């Protein structure tokens, strides 16, 4: 029993972390004009070339054959830099295509040719089925012709080009967002919930991004508290700031260790035993993501509320991720029933 990453795992962490820090750091958002896309085609190609889309997919499906454990370690580092949501859409999309036997589409996604938007029901009544009805919201439609919609009942992959998309501004300015209404829309690929729990995978990967974000904002606050002076002292010496940072650290420890534990459960003990653990992860990770992002803004004071500092991207992303998994607080019911 060991909850410390081993050397192989550390290697993945380091590789993803250094690529993200060098190529896709959160600071890049500052220089993007309003309405610019999250990623250029060149940036996307770099991500694709690293093989991240297929990292956790079985080799027989064209993936690298790693497990969910490696996948959460990757997404945690991606989340630390508010990395591309398109990666999450494509990772889940490729999995749905693979499981539904759509190998051509799967390969297009793995090769980066097709990107996959993430769709969520705009009202809670909708549910995944082979024919879809209802209002949806889609994240990342600017360069995607496919979208994936996931819930407890299953996961569907469908084409978006026949849809009437209404673009709306997203909380994250560089993330394209559209609403659409589906009427008996045919799914290209449909995976029932019981076959492979795509919902669980989406939940834990999004949670990993939340954990990365929570850790990044903790680190930003701590670094600032060690350099910013007020009233002739480093602000980190004031308990009002120190204790905010301590609480951020506790939320990280809570969410991160539970993320590790639940991913190991999923890998080694199966979905039945892992389901509750992942529900706990989802709640704690979203709480850490949102509350640490908020605390980080407060620690930075005035500069924290500007668009110039990266702090707000973490807050916005934390809200988006929470909706991507259909609201982490709904998972609390799974822990009681």
């Amino acid at each position, binding site marked *: 029993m060991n909850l410390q990453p081993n050397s192989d795992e550390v290697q993945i962490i380091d590789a993803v972390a250094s690529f993200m820090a060098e190529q896709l750091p959160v600071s890049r958002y500052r220089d993007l004009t309003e309405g610019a896309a999250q990623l250029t085609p060149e940036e996307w190609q770099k991500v694709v070339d690293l093989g991240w889309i297929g990292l956790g997919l079985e080799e027989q499906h064209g993936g690298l054959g790693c497990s969910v454990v490696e996948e959460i370690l990757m997404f945690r580092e991606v989340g630390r830099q508010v990395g591309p949501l398109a990666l999450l859409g494509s990772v889940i999309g490729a999995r749905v295509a693979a499981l539904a036997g759509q190998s051509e589409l799967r390969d297009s996604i793995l090769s980066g040719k097709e990107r996959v938007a993430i769709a*969520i*029901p*705009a*009202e*809670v*009544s909708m549910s995944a089925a082979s024919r879809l009805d209802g209002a949806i*919201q889609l*994240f990342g439609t600017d360069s995607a012709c496919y979208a994936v919609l996931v819930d407890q009942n299953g996961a569907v992959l469908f084409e978006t080009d026949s849809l009437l998309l209404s673009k*709306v*501004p*997203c*909380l994250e*300015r560089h993330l394209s*967002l559209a609403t659409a209404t589906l009427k008996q829309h045919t799914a290209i690929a449909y995976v029932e919930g019981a076959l492979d729990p795509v919902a669980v995978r989406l939940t834990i990967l999004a949670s990993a991004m939340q954990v990365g974000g929570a850790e990044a904002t903790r680190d930003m606050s701590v670094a600032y508290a060690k350099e*910013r*002076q*007020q*009233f*002739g002292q480093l602000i980190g010496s*004031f308990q*009002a*700031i120190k204790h905010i940072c301590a609480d951020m650290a506790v939320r990280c420890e809570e969410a991160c260790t539970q993320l590790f534990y639940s991913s190991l459960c999923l890998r080694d003990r199966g979905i039945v035993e892992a389901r509750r653990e992942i529900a706990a992860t989802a709640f704690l990770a979203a709480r850490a993501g949102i509350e640490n992002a*908020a605390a980080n*803004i*407060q620690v930075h*004071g*005035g*500069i*924290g*509320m*500007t*668009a*110039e500092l990266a*702090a*707000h991207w973490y*807050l*916005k992303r934390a*809200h*988006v991720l929470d*909706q991507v998994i259909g*609201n982490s*607080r*709904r998972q609390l*019911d799974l822990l009681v029933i």
Partner: protein
Amino acid sequence: MDLDFTQTEKLFREQVAAWLHENVPKEPRPYEGDVSRAFDVAWQRKMYDAGWAGIAWPSEFGGRGLATMQQLIWYEEYAKAGAPWAGNVFVGINLAGPTLILEANEDQKAFHLPKILRGEVTWCQGFSEPSAGSDLASLRTRAVIDGDHLVVNGQKIWTSFGSHAQYQMLLVRTNPDVPKHKGISWVICDMSTPGITVRPIEIMSGGHHFCEIFYDDVRIPLSNVVGKINDGWRVTMATLSFERGTAFMADCIELEKKIVELTEHARMHSSPLGSGKAIDDDEIRRRLGQVRAESSALRSIILAAISRNESTGKPGPESSIVRLHFSQVQQRVFKLAMDILGPAQTIMSELGQGWSQPYLRSYASSIAGGTAQVQRNIIGERILGLPK
């Protein structure tokens, strides 16, 4: 204790309500930019012409010379009528004007006060600095006396509407060799003076009304110093004590309206946390009730503060309680709104509209004008008497 208003006050309320009903602008206030300044000063001029500007200002400067209670009534009716936020004229009317009335010399008052009241000019605040933050008195913008002028070099930040203001209440360090509170002067700065550069700052909720201001050998006549030279900290304390004041009542009523609106929203929309309408969710419904209770209390707190001020003659440190409470309730309301919106929370609403943009905006309320941490220090030290 009583909740009664005198006959005069009641009559005043009726007049205010009737006038506002007829005259509140039908079109929404533009959120920012030149158009918002034009809108704000036009509306100020309209109020001035009808005799509603400067209700508690002395009549010799164009005010009505009435009591705090009347001003409170004005703000209550103002918010109830849905009248627009003061915006560009806020600093002149609520901070600069009252400070000048108390501290300026006759020439300064005669020149500036009527212009402010008529909406001919707008003012901005030049207090905060990047390295000072909550520790306002540690400001570094230097002013050196050169003949009958001050020569100012330095930088200010968080100046609302700085791009559109004609004048600024500017704090400068005129003596660097004494303890930090003792070498500060409060001066009137004409924003068109050469050497001033204004750079708008974008904030996380969108919008650019905060600015950074740079001073490069800016020459300000010594006659623009308000109070004495190096006595600026005392003047500043007066300015800060006016911040919001009775105007808080308008914010409070605004917030109550938002809660009612949010409750209606929850009644009409599905719950993002389960089945049924949002309002049928026990947790959401109770949180709506909680912010409702807290906003009621906010009104009571403001009324109590005004009652106290009436007997002592000036605002006390209790304003920190109002400020802290207001920021907490406001942030809770908008956080609740995000939870009620569910998926739609990811859509950015227009500036000043809807819920997600104001939610992001609400993060400023525990930072601007002194962080929540500083407010708690003030409450602890100045109200409860705890050691520094």
